[in-house]
């Protein structure tokens, strides 16, 4: 592995730890992460109502007589956004390219996360046997994979030689 690749990993983990400690800090969690998660629940609840599921949303809980989900940390897409943030900021690129990557990447991750919540609700309501598997493993990995895939696409665009030839 080349020095630039090692440097990328060191920066990646340093940024990841710093960002995690920031969002795990109670004031940030209570005033940023929880309201953000409530927003995720509102959007997902609206999508479920749009497809004919009569759900109500209260805080981070989406429920109906059929099933209910409580969106916690780890299910709000923030974990994938942290991976995206750490990888994009650690990668050598201009500030503008990083900002564009972060905004587009966050939107992509949250779009997929809304689909995750909708499908998990539907699985819980209609195929409860599959819920645990999809909740624990399938969607978690797919969301992180999407963040990594976005980072690779972005890095190939901003600096193709750095990633493609030295990877």
């Amino acid at each position: 592995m080349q020095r630039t690749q090692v440097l990328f990993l060191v920066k990646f983990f340093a940024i990841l730890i710093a960002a995690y400690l920031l969002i795990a800090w109670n004031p940030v969690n209570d005033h940023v992460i929880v309201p953000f998660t409530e927003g995720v629940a509102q959007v997902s609840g609206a999508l479920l109502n749009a497809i004919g599921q009569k759900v109500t949303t209260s805080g981070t809980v989406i429920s109906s007589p059929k099933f209910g989900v409580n969106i916690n940390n780890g299910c709000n897409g923030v974990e994938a956004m942290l991976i995206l943030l750490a990888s994009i900021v650690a990668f050598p690129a201009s500030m503008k390219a990083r900002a564009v990557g972060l905004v587009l990447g966050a939107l992509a991750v949250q779009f997929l996360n809304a689909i995750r919540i909708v499908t998990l609700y539907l699985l819980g309501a209609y195929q409860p046997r599959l819920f645990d598997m999809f909740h624990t493993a399938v969607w978690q990995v797919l969301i992180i994979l999407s963040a990594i895939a976005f980072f690779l696409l972005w890095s190939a665009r901003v600096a193709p030689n750095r990633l493609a030839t030295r990877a």
Partner: protein
Amino acid sequence: MPRIDWRLALKGFAGFLVGLAIWAFLSPVYDRLIAASAEKVMRAFEKPSVTELRPKEDNYVTVDRADFDRRSKQRPAIPIRDLTFNIALLTALFAASKRTFSDRNMGGFVLAIVCLALSHVFGTVAEVMSIYVAKLGMWSTVHYTDLERNVWGVLNHFYRVVLMYAIAFALWWIFRDPGTAAPAAAAKKKKRR
């Protein structure tokens, strides 16, 4: 944005499904291996050596200690498979390669899997320690300080929320076949030709 190489994306998805199947079917055996290794690690660092991690039928591992009152039946249990499913992420990343079955890629994958298993032992130890320091009522208060509670609590949460994915990504980054980088990179090269 660069063009997506759908062939590599499909390979990655197939790798994800294979990884998921391996994780699902081998978990009962793998959980025992990780529990036994984590128990050995914990016993090596604790005085007296009393931690006992006993796999149950339902994919959980009972956390017990030889110095706990045997008359009390209630024991905490941890789902080790919740700490190990990043195997599917690793297989997906290695599969999304131009030469998936090249010696270099497969060799890297084996090395990455070994390192990942070590991280699973660490994740299990952090999980058990987070129980010891905070979830056993007065016993936790008496035996551990607030600093230890914070450190193990944060470590366990950090592992579960982001570190387990970051480790899989980093291992792929370190051990992947240099000639078969990323889907995007490969697509870019193809375009240039």
